[in-house]
């Protein structure tokens, strides 16, 4: 087994791999911080949130729900459903972390996000990646995220509401993450089903239950279609 402490060359490679993630996280984190400031969240609460909950989409939804006066349990429930997608990513990474100590896995899993997963998975598949390098990528991304979100809160008071299209940051992030999920035609069909159910759900049931309702229904449709396709083969 390789040493836990990587050589300087492999550390450099990890920094290089993390660079695009950090570049992406900075404007998104800044935008989140500005919106949080406008929702009345102070810098220390933002720091606490980014440390305890390293999950961009869930944090944006949380800020929007706090601004709308949602209950704490509703926010936690929505966070759970929104982050359930990481079960799949974590499972996929398990293939490359067989026999690794549980303490390492406990530390590593903290930093599994859509972006770090995409980078680490591609490197692990290529075969020249160590778990220490993967851990460096996760924690660099996390450090930048905490820095960007707290900076956003601190500069937020100087940013007028709606400036620079900041309200579109979350939508842009969702669009980008959605596109990353289009692996085959069934994923696109599932996405369309989820969109239709969500829009109709909002017509009849008020509140935020559409997020949980539409995603569970649509994923089940996708799963059933997947099974049918499998049988026809």
């Amino acid at each position, binding site marked *: 087994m390789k040493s836990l402490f990587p050589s300087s060359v492999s550390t450099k490679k990890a920094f290089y791999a993390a660079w695009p993630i950090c*570049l*992406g996280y900075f*404007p*998104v984190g800044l*935008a989140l911080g500005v919106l949080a400031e406008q929702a009345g969240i102070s810098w220390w609460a933002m720091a*606490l*949130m980014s440390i*305890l909950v*390293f999950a961009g*989409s*869930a944090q944006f939804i*949380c800020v929007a729900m706090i601004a709308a006066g949602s209950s*704490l349990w509703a926010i*936690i429930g929505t*966070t*759970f459903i929104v982050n359930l*997608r990481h*079960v*799949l*990513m*974590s*499972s996929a990474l*398990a293939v490359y*972390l*067989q026999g*690794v100590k549980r303490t390492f*896995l406990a530390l590593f*899993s903290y930093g599994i996000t859509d972006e770090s997963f995409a980078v680490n998975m591609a490197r692990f598949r290529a075969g020249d990646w160590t778990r220490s390098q993967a851990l460096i990528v996760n924690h660099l991304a996390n450090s930048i995220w905490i820095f960007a979100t707290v900076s956003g809160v601190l500069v937020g008071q100087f940013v007028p509401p709606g400036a*620079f*299209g*900041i*309200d*579109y*940051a979350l*939508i*842009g*992030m*969702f*669009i*980008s*993450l*959605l*596109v*990353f999920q289009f692996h085959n035609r069934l*994923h696109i069909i599932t*996405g369309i089903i*989820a*969109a*239709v*159910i*969500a*829009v109709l759900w*909002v017509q009849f049931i008020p509140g935020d239950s*559409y*997020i949980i309702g*539409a*995603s569970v229904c*649509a994923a089940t449709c996708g*799963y059933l279609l*997947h099974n049918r396709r499998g049988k026809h083969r």
Partner: protein
Amino acid sequence: MSPSDYLFLFVGMGLVTYLPRALPLIYLTHKKMPQWLVDWLEYIPVAVLAALLAPILFIDTTSAAITYGKLEFLVAIPTLIFAVKTRSLGGTVLVGMFLYWLAGIFL
């Protein structure tokens, strides 16, 4: 919200964020998940993101009716094309923000 409300909220959110990331990794290095669960979970990410996005793009915020003319939706079309072409998170966010800001000035 009081500091204790924030602490409760963030610890709660932290747990439901951490456990789905940690449990599969810690247990799957020893045993396998049932195949139906793996297959079902494959469709969760795309479903969650589409469910989050659709009402923002198609529901009028004041009347709660379905509409196809929202600025959010019109800007989403070029933003989506940019995302498909570049597959860049930061770039897509910046392009979306810029177009939304421009559209707000001219429309």
